[in-house]
């Protein structure tokens, strides 16, 4: 029997505002627990929430990128439930009137695109964090009141791979807009999935499960693949799927039942009386629209046409806005964009990946990189030496000119100097010289190598080739 998986996603993104959603507490807190708190986010008696407008702005920005309709009237509601990390006993969230409705994201390659619907985008506050210890549980309220954006997709996804691509696309949009860090490991981007399977061709959905606790893109795909398999196996062996929440167990590579939906909460939503409705004017939306940067897909296409680089290069270079900006800065300083792309995709990204750092923290500026490319072009250094210079630049942050100067890496261009080295090498390798003259001309490679070795790679290779051929033919 053939089965078709049906997947819908619920994504929670922490917004990167400076202050929390309803108070002035800072959202950055590497400090100790409960330091970034105040009467409002601690839910002390009498404290009242005041909405941070920036949160709405970030929400609108994202909703526009997801092609959503923006609600002109936004109402917050209280979602009531008891949990020790929820200081007010309710979460302020959007319920009936979310900020964004009915959008979509396209996934897949250009000629084979799939449109994945976005049901809604709404704003809410994050809860605190529990720390369980042998002697009891502790609560850290630093995270309480961090603005969250919840994005819910339609059940339009059909494979785990598509689901991953959807989240990657969404992440790129969030990152490009600078509204979220999108760190799944640290929880600034959290993804839950609703999964069901149905017989191929069936119209109705099967019973779904909700999978939580997928803490990275890699695990997400694995967890979804596992859950799809599990459901198919269950049905094939005559069982039935129970509507429930399942947790992904990373260590064991399985999903485990957490609680069944029968015990689900009645959240008793009602409009939050402490906040007034937020009206979103057309003008406000248009002002925000102007601040939306070029998104990855558009940028990729532009790179291909403007810089004449292959589509693959463009895709790699646009994976982050910082990387794309880096490339463009370089391309402005050095006209051969393909060479720039080669160096960034090869040497630069390798170093960055090895060090597990970010292009933003890279010690090689676009100016340094393109200066070095210029020096290669002018013949001051060879491409091979350049790799040495590059590594040095990366480690020290020194300018390429300085490195070449200090280490004496300048290419030897003087024909007389090269000629005298050639003579020395020829004298030391009479056998090879003889073989060349007997017609085994391929042996010239060996002799070139010896000259280069003698000069520690600094001799200009073209010049060495030319002069060596002349010298060998001379006698």
């Amino acid at each position, binding site marked *: 029997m053939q089965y078709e998986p049906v997947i819908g996603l619920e994504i929670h993104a922490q917004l990167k505002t400076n202050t929390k959603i309803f108070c002035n507490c800072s959202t950055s807190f590497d400090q100790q627990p409960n330091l970034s708190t105040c*009467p409002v986010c601690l839910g*002390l008696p*009498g*404290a009242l929430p005041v909405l941070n407008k920036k949160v709405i702005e970030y929400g609108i920005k994202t909703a526009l990128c997801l092609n959503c309709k923006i609600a002109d009237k936004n109402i917050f509601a209280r979602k009531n439930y008891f949990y020790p990390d929820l200081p007010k006993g309710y979460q302020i969230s959007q319920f009936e009137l979310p900020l964004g409705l009915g959008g979509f994201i396209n996934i897949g390659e250009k000629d084979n695109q799939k449109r994945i619907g976005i049901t809604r985008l709404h704003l809410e506050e994050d809860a605190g964090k529990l720390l369980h210890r042998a002697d009891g549980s502790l*609560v850290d309220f630093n995270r309480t009141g961090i603005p969250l954006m919840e994005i819910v997709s339609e059940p339009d996804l059909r494979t785990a791979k598509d689901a991953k691509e959807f989240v990657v696309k969404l992440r790129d949009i969030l990152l490009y807009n600078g509204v979220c860090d999108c760190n799944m490991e640290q929880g600034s981007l959290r993804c839950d999935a609703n999964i069901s399977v149905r017989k191929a061709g069936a119209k109705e959905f099967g019973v779904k499960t909700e999978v939580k606790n997928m803490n990275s893109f890699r695990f997400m795909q694995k967890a979804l693949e596992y859950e799809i398999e599990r459901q198919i196996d269950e049905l094939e062996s005559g069982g039935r799927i129970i509507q429930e929440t399942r947790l992904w167990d990373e260590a064991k590579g399985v999903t485990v039942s957490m609680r069944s939906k029968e015990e689900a909460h009645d959240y*008793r939503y*009602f409009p939050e009386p*402490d906040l*007034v409705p937020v009206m979103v004017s057309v003008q406000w939306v248009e002002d925000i629209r102007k601040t939306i940067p070029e998104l990855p897909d558009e940028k990729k296409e532009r790179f291909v046409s403007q810089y004449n680089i292959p589509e693959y290069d463009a895709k790699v270079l646009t994976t982050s806005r910082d990387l794309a900006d880096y490339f463009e800065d370089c391309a402005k300083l050095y006209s051969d964009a393909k060479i720039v792309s080669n160096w960034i995709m090869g040497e630069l990204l390798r170093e960055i990946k090895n060090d597990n750092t970010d292009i933003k923290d890279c010690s090689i500026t676009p100016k340094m990189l393109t200066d070095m490319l210029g020096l290669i072009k002018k013949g001051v250094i060879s491409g091979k030496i350049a790799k040495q210079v590059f590594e040095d630049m990366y480690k020290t942050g020194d300018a390429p000119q300085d490195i070449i100067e200090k280490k004496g890496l300048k290419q030897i261009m003087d024909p007389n100097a090269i000629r005298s080295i050639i003579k020395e090498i020829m004298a030391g390798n009479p056998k090879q010289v003889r073989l060349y003259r007997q017609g085994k001309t391929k042996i010239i490679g060996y002799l070139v190598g010896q000259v280069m070795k003698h000069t520690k790679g600094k001799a200009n290779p073209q010049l060495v080739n030319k002069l060596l051929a002349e010298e060998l033919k001379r006698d």
Partner: protein
Amino acid sequence: MSKFYEYSICELNSLLLKKEIKAVEITESYLKRIEKLDGKIGSYLTITAEEALKQAAIVDKKIVNGEKISVLAGIPLAIKDNMCIKGIKTTCASKILHNFIPPYDATVVKKLDNEDYVLLGKTNLDEFAMGASTENSGFKITHNPWDLSCVPGGSSGGSAAVVAAREAVAALGSDTGGSIRQPAACCGVVGLKPTYGLVSRFGLVAFASSLDQIGPITRDVRDAAVLLNIISGHDECDSTSINKELPDYTAGLGDGVKGLKIGLPKEYFSDWVDAEVAVCMDSARKILENLGAEFIDISLPHTEYGVATYYIIATAEASANLARYDGVKYGYRSPDYNNFLQMQKNTREEGFGAEVKRRIMLGTYVLSSGYYDAYYLKAQKVRSLIKNDFDQAFSDCDLIMTPTIAEPAFKLGEKTSDPLKMYLSDIFTISANLAGIPAISIPAGFAKEGLPIGLQFLGGAFSEDMILKAAYAFEQATDYHLKWPK
């Protein structure tokens, strides 16, 4: 000269300015009076004698130094114990907050502080302001200073009682369905509930967020206007507070009622209004007519749904507002638990009183899935109808006059076993909260047993200046406000 407790805010201020008395002497005289009387009346939950004397001394120093002082400088006030004051216990008369010391000041408290007021203490209330007799306090009973066997009204019973008994010059109360006006009427003092949004709620421990409003309880109308001048105004910390140019509420007090059109809603003058209350209302009408006011009959047709609507909306909001008391962060925590669920259950079971539990259950029920539309949503619709009633009425008249309470203060224990009867105590005051409009209760006479009777003026949103003006005119023509329990 030691009976400083006989003077109003404005009188004390002029005595201070003339250097005829010292702020410390005023405070001392009040502290002595509290010591003498409060054992019988029971209106204070916390008395801040030391801080009060310190604050009064600061004011005296300012006067000696020739610094300019505010009208409120050195004036001893009491504050209902549901408003946060930094470093001073704020209990809401609930065991669940028996040890809660806020780390911050309510906005109204900050405003009073800026004027150098003197805090005498925090007053008793029905637990979390839920009640009409102050009998629901988790700590003690407050007695009506006019008759110790009667209730002072509620929920701001402590604040009304201290003003009536001259245990404070004036006090702040909070009004969700009548909790300032009803006790003011029961205790024969002035109580003003401002327009929703005129006074910041920041730091007022929430009962029903869309209805709660802080206001003054004073011995005369001028003092109410003086306090309103100070506590009103926009607050960035309260999203529902209104940003609006406000008048000086004392400026137009003496303008009189000549030409003012006063509506008498027929729904408020039904048979079951106590005969003595009806007599007072009649005489009030005559007095105001003599002053040049004109009376017309009006109708507020949805009045009868007020109480039901109120008890759905208020309890729904309360059920969420009181969810935070779980024993995790502050206040009472049951010693008896093995896990969070038990801790929270036992804490709430042991910490809340019966009436609070009743309202939490009611509110939880009306918000439950399947009942939300039938109760909460319908109540919101009726609330709009009640609001429309008033909009309609105020197109025909300038303000509305009604009794504040249908009968004088009842006996302690009389209604504690019948919550529905208790709920009806607020029948004339609830609509103003639902409509968000201002209303004032002022003394309007006495029943045969000597218990005070109150009348209420209601006005359109932000018409505080008008209802104060009418109240002042009535007050000047009568002497009810000059009487006080001996």
